């Protein structure tokens, strides 16, 4: 029974990994660009939730939407002020731009919020429920289910809607998309908004169930790399499966080997993937 509980807990956390990783894979698939600050977007989502609760006394519905909106605006702003200018530049500028951004956001958070761990005050999501002998915190359950639903929604948005077709058209062939009357610049801006917004919601969902400090951004950023590498670059559905798998692997290795080894196992998996299957489960190189 304990082991079953570990598995369910891992899958629920993995669902949130899937949500923020789908944002990273969207940017990679759209513009062949890696956002090193993606984990910091998740971290900011957590602090937005925290501030909304502490200052405004908002409930989960309010702070989840607030985190989504705040990060969406931030993502668009970063695209317009920074990414748009470096995307045509040398590789060094592309990598440095978001890498520097990650440092800036991470250490600004350290400076403002200090390195201490914080957690959200109790909301109506507090408490645990008993599912046939498995005890689960309500917040984890709601967060996990909502994350799966949102990741699937993003997948459907990309594959079934006209807007999604426009986004994928730009990803496939920028020039041809322009000839069809699509503005690539606007589509890429939208992708950055969606990507950061997904990270923001994931952060707010994480904040309801887990304590955190400013350094989580680094961990989540690396986890997102591993999820995207496993799921295949550019595949949202792939990152859903991969997120669940990584959550599961982390939970089981923490259970069997001890908590400090869970990240070692996951990063080791990443190196093994690079060697043996760089295209991931569902992607292409």
């Amino acid at each position, binding site marked *: 029974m304990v082991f079953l509980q570990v598995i369910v807990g891992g899958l629920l956390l993995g669902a949130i990994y899937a949500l923020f990783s789908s944002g990273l894979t969207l940017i990679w698939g759209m513009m062949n660009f890696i956002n090193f600050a993606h984990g910091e977007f998740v971290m900011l989502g957590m602090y937005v939730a925290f501030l909304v609760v502490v200052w405004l006394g908002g409930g989960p519905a309010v702070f989840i939407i607030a985190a989504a909106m705040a990060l969406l605006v931030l993502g668009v702003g970063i695209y317009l002020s920074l990414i748009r200018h*470096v995307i045509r530049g040398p*590789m*060094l*500028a592309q990598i*440095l731009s978001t890498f520097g951004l990650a*440092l800036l956001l991470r*250490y600004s958070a350290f400076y403002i919020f200090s390195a201490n761990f914080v957690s959200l005050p109790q909301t109506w999501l507090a408490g645990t429920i008993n599912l046939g002998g498995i005890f689960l915190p309500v917040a984890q359950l709601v967060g996990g289910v909502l994350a799966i639903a949102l990741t699937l929604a993003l997948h459907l948005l990309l594959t079934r809607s006209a807007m999604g077709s426009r986004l994928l058209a730009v990803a496939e062939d920028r020039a041809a998309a322009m000839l069809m009357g699509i503005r690539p610049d606007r589509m890429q801006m939208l992708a950055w908004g969606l990507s950061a917004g997904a990270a923001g919601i994931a952060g707010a969902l994480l904040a309801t169930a887990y304590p955190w400090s400013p350094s989580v951004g680094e961990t989540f950023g*690396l986890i997102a790399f591993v999820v995207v590498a496993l799921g295949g670059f550019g595949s949202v559905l792939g990152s859903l499966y991969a997120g669940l798998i990584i959550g599961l692997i982390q939970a089981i290795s923490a259970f069997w080997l001890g908590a400090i080894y869970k990240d070692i196992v996951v990063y080791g998996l990443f190196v093994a993937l690079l060697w043996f299957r760089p295209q991931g489960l569902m992607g292409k190189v």
Partner: protein
Amino acid sequence: MIKALSPRLAIILLAAALLLYPLVLSGAFYRDIGVAFLLAAISASAWNIVGGYAGQVSVGHSMFFGLGAYTPLLFYSLWGWPPIAGIPAGIALSIGLSLLIGMPTFRLTGHYFSMATIAVAELIRIFTGTWDFVGAAIGLQGPAIARGWWDLTFRSEVPYYYLFLAVLALLLAVTTFIERRRFGFYLRAIKASERAARSLGVPVRRTKMQALALSAAFTSVAGSLYVIKTGFIDPDSAFGILISVQMVIVAALGGAGTLFGPLVGALILIPLQSATNTWFGGGGSGLTYILYGGIIVLIARFEPGGLFELWQRVAPALHKLLGKRLHV
């Protein structure tokens, strides 16, 4: 006036300034900064070989720095060998690790390499912190008092300064040598366009591999020098992400892929870092890294060629301006 400053003269002046620096400015504070400057210049110049010349941006070079830093103290704590004996082992381990990372990722596009470097560096950092054989989270210590000159444990900063300066000179000589050889042209061709380089018959993967191995070897030496001077190492000061960040920012600020770029970057950044630490007191390290992040973003956005390219653009205009004024 600017015309008179020919490259050859500039190098002689630079060499003289570096040689005389600890004799002229003899305070402990200045010597500290001088040694920190040399170490930053060595690390960034080593990074520059693969990150600058070949254009393969590593954001996890701390893994080589850390290997170079750990082996000397590991040899000392295991068998009581002088730390300097661990340098070759550190180099060998770093080259081995560079093969392990380069072989799979250099088949793929450049982003994979960057992602792999950051993940592997983090993997090693966490693993080192849990491994009792290398002191786990506490780390390792070197000889407290020198048992002989071979321990290279000095009270004064001056011997370290000249040791580091010699290594920097060697590294710059190697880089100059590469620049002029076919290998250097290969590297720049790969940076400009990998596909074009391959179609012209450049052995792309092998060249990138060799550049990474050479860079790893010198970065490892930088780590060894650091630890021989401080006599102490722990996972964060060996493999921490900020060690990698400093190499990238120093090289990129001065001009990645140029011989003297890392020196210029270190010349600006190390005094700046020391100043911010003094101004902001103990809590200043956080602000230093906010500053680092800001500088990196600004370089990427406005001046990806670093100060070197900025100077190349500004110098002719300045020359014209000064020339006019002198002639009138």
